[in-house]
């Protein structure tokens, strides 16, 4: 397709093509690892076998050389994808299947349809492109509006102190630390070297996108540094020294007093030496003024405030050796040292002051908590699910889940829609259970049109639904296995899922022994029960629980029970398929051209009961109301993860089989 086989300029590395480079690119071409977006489970659901074409599935963008985009991405997701792409180290390619590339990305290297054949062909082409055009003399920086951020300076100890310029903290005199924020306000135009393109653009609506994927920071500016290492001297401008001083003075309103570091009871209004030990008195701000005046607004949610930013710039690091940031640190430091006398920043800072507002962990110690995003593309969680966990070490103190890809509509979205278009729309919006939602839409529209249930095609529809249930449960097993590091289960279940999806009734009956063998094998796996027993216990009898999650709540309601509930449902579904006719995709019966009315129906999708209410007017769908199991289940996450260890919390979330696509936002 591309006449000139060369990677997009944002993907290549800057090296003059040479023999060695050729060798590297050959090796890379034969060693592709891909990050599947929105997630590997979507690729599987579309019947794509990525491993079969010789690509490794990478868990993180760091590890990936190919960004494989499967299907159309919702808008929020395509912003996240841009960040992911920015995090991938160079020699990176974009492979898009079945959709146009998101506008946030710089185009595609190879694209194709959503089929295994197209994937094979695309990968072959990608390998050629990689092998030939991996190195170029003029790579481009990948710059997307999503990535823009503004640098601001915060005090490591006083998170409420946020300055636009480097300097020292007005409260404790510590050097302020740079961090990037997603938002930027137009008036802050700095010409610091390190900010280069990360400033001055107004992208307020993207606040969080910047950090949301994987918790890796956006590394794009790092690339810039790499490329301009020859200009290293430029990195040490001293020109903003005056900022810090000015800033310091402006903030310096509190009364300054002088005290002896050894004898706190000695307090003087002017500098001098201590009458007891003769040491120089040290300037100190009046703590009480300070605490009452400035800290008050931030008191209650002090830690939240701080941790909101921690994940992007984890603030406990020493970067004195990091050349890129060295300059700002360096001059800030000098500001601090002069500042000791100039603006009364003290040499002594109270640790009690610092720790008193910190939250207490379960063991009663006041520790920094860390808010870490997991997702929307996180190995082990379904793609599109964004989990925000507040970590206290390895434990989760609280967390919420949100869907980045959830269906947005609960009503008339684009005005009127043709009935068939609506069915397509709904089923393509649910890539993890397209058949169920197609069936749901068909049934609802048929009801609305006043048609009686027809037993003639019910059998085929049941077959298709049950087949999808088996496939979906297998897909869940694969993802769950991957999350638990159980490679065999992940491989086996995804292979079976691919087979089941495409199988006819006979094919499914042939697969029965392997499905049984899988269940037996899972039952015999050591450590598995210890891993799942008692994890993610849900209250019994809650009305919010639907589907396998609800049915498992009677049997213990933990992850182990849910695993077995799903494993038991597979043979049950097989029995239904055996009793029914050949599975066939639900197709809307002829409803006539000019029917009106409303219809409501429910379908037991693989994840639980979904309800759809459709209003038809003259054959057009004017409005609909959708209620899915996952939009109830996602609210359980906060309770499931609270106070758990990280591994257990993730397993608990994994065990309820959330499909972020089926979350109604």
């Amino acid at each position: 397709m591309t006449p000139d086989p060369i990677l997009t300029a944002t993907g290549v590395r800057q090296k003059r093509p040479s023999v060695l480079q050729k060798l590297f690119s050959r090796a890379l071409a034969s060693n592709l690892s891909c990050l599947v977006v929105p997630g590997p489970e979507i690729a599987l659901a579309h019947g794509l076998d990525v491993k079969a074409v010789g690509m490794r599935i990478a868990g993180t963008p760091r590890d990936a050389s190919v960004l494989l985009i499967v299907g159309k991405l919702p808008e929020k997701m395509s912003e996240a994808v841009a960040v992911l792409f920015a995090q991938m180290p160079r020699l990176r390619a974009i492979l898009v299947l079945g959709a146009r590339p998101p506008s946030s990305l710089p185009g595609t290297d190879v694209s194709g349809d959503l089929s295994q054949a197209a994937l094979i062909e695309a990968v072959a082409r990608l390998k050629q492109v990689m092998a030939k055009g991996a190195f170029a003399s003029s790579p481009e920086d990948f710059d997307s509006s999503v990535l823009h951020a503004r640098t601001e300076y915060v005090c490591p100890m006083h998170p409420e102190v946020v300055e636009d310029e480097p300097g020292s903290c007005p409260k404790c005199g510590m050097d302020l630390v740079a961090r990037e924020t997603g938002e930027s306000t137009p008036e802050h135009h700095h010409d610091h070297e390190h900010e280069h393109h990360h400033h001055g653009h107004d992208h307020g609506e993207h606040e969080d996108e910047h950090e949301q994927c994987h918790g890796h920071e956006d590394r794009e500016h790092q690339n810039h540094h790499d490329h301009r290492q020859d200009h290293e001297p430029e990195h040490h401008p001293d020109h903003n020294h005056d900022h810090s001083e000015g800033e310091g003075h402006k903030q310096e309103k509190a009364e300054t007093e002088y005290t002896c570091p050894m004898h706190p009871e000695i307090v003087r209004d002017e500098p001098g030496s201590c009458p007891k030990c003769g040491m120089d008195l040290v300037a100190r701000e009046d703590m009480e003024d300070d605490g009452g005046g400035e800290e008050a607004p931030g008191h209650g949610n002090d830690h939240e405030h701080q941790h909101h930013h921690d994940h992007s710039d984890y603030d406990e690091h020493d970067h004195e050796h990091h050349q890129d940031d060295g300059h700002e640190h360096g001059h800030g430091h000098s500001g601090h040292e002069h500042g000791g006398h100039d603006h009364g920043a003290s040499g002594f800072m109270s640790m009690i002051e610092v720790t008193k507002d910190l939250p207490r962990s379960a063991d009663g110690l006041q520790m920094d908590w860390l808010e870490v995003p997991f997702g929307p593309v996180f190995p082990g969680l379904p793609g599109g699910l964004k989990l925000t966990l507040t970590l206290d070490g390895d434990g989760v103190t609280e967390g919420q889940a949100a869907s980045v890809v959830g269906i947005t509509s609960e009503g008339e979205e684009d005005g009127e829609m043709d009935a068939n278009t609506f069915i397509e729309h709904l089923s393509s919006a649910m890539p993890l259970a397209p058949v169920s939602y197609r069936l749901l839409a068909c049934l609802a529209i048929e009801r609305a049109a006043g048609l009686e249930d027809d037993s003639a095609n019910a059998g085929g529809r049941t077959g298709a639904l049950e087949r999808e249930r088996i496939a979906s449960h297998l897909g869940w097993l694969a993802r769950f296995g991957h999350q638990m590091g159980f490679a065999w289960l992940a491989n086996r279940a995804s292979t079976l899922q691919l087979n089941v999806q495409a199988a006819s009734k006979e094919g499914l009956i042939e697969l029965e022994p392997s499905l049984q063998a899988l269940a037996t094998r899972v039952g015999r796996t050591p450590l598995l029960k210890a891993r799942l027993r008692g994890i993610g216990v849900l209250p019994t009898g809650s009305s919010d629980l639907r589907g396998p999650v609800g049915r498992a709540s009677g049997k213990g309601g933990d992850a182990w029970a849910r695993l077995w509930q799903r494993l038991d449902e597979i043979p049950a579904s097989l029995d239904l398929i055996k009793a029914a006719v050949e599975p066939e995709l639900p197709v809307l019966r002829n409803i006539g051209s000019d029917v009106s009315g409303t219809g409501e129906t429910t379908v037991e999708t693989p994840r639980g009961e979904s309800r759809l209410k459709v209003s038809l007017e003259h054959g057009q769908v004017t409005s609909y109301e959708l209620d899915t199991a996952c939009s109830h289940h996602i609210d359980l996450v906060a309770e499931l993860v609270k106070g758990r260890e990280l591994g257990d919390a993730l397993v608990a979330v994994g065990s309820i089989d959330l499909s972020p696509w089926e979350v109604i936002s």
Partner: protein
Amino acid sequence: MTPVLILALLTGAVLFGVGVYGALSQTNLVMIMMGVELILAGALVNLVAFWRFLHPEVYSGQMFVLVVMTVMAVEMAVGFGVATARFRAKGSVEMEEAEDLKG
């Protein structure tokens, strides 16, 4: 008199000095413990040097080293126990803030 013995003793002496400086100058309990560890490291160097160059046939010298190593471990254990308890109670292990310990 061997230069190696003197070298080792000098090293021990300087380590001891650095340790004393650290233990006295730091305000944080854990940092003070680091100073103490350095002091003990200085002592260890001396002990090994004395054993090696003066009485290699007397194994009580090596035994002494083992005992000092145990002391280091005990110091760590007790120090961290105290630090944790103090942090739990006061929210601080800064010496500047340990006014209740002042005589």
